[in-house]
């Protein structure tokens, strides 16, 4: 999420929270004391008293947007299980790649290339440019950029030879970075 999108989301969320809070207080005050008169704002009355086609369209649009955003939020929190097999076209037809098997190979190679590292998860994806790897791991203290390049080169060579795929991108998600002695404890 970009900084601008985040700012917009936070502002919209806070404004909506403020409106919802005001509505809650209004309802509570009116329920607590029947004598309280708390009329809603004029623009809201105009909007809801005699709804026009434009009002209906705006409401439908807002509802659709809310559903879309809720779905996106759900997908962000629960991304779902990744595919276990990736099929891709090769000159002779179609090839199938077992993601768990690839993950095991990547884990072994990763931990051999970077002693002290401990891989916890491996993800693989393919787009128009080639294959991308995402490795989640506990890392030892080291030059992280240099390590990423060394790992990329090593995994690229290895997977080209073993699986015939070309790795073009490696994203390493460090769960922790600890000195080797501390990791051993």
């Amino acid at each position, binding site marked *: 999420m970009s900084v601008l999108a985040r700012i917009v989301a936070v502002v919209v*969320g806070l404004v909506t929270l403020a409106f919802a809070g005001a509505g809650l207080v209004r309802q509570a005050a009116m329920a607590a004391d029947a004598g309280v008169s708390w009329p809603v704002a004029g623009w809201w009355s105009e909007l809801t008293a005699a709804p026009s086609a434009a009002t209906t369209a705006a409401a439908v649009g807002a509802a659709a947007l809310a559903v879309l955003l809720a779905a996106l939020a759900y997908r962000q929190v629960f991304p779902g299980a990744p595919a276990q097999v990736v099929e891709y076209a090769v000159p002779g037809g179609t090839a199938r790649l077992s993601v768990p098997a690839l993950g095991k190979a990547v884990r072994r190679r990763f931990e051999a290339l970077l002693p002290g590292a401990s891989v916890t998860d491996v993800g693989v994806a393919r787009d128009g440019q080639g294959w991308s790897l995402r490795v989640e791991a506990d890392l030892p203290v080291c030059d992280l950029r240099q390590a990423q390049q060394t790992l990329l080169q090593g995994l690229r060579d290895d997977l080209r030879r073993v699986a015939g795929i070309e790795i073009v991108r490696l994203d390493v998600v460090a769960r922790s970075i600890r000195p080797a002695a501390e990791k051993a404890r």
Partner: protein
Amino acid sequence: MALLALLLWLVLRHDAEVVWLSSATGDGGVLAPRADLERSLATTVGRAHPDVLRAQVDLRARGAVLRARVTVWTRPLADPETVGAAADAAVRHEAERLTGRDLDHVGVRVRVLTVGRLVRYLP
């Protein structure tokens, strides 16, 4: 309202606690926990000069720009300039060792402790 608050929390949660170190060639990078990097940097700064009693490093990344704000607490009568220079050099060196590049900006604040406050900062 609870749902809205949850969504807001999802937007604001721990993204600020990681630092993205992209590779120079654009073929990926490392997403590193900020606290771990800061701890390593602070440990190094703490050893940068004998007068340093405690060090705290606040690492910030915006895009490819990495900044560090260092606060060091020193023994009474320590020379702030000498300690500041040592802390600056140490944090730059350690950041380069960890991230493969120099920091774009380092701000060092040296706090020389009075004798009365010293006891709270002694290891």
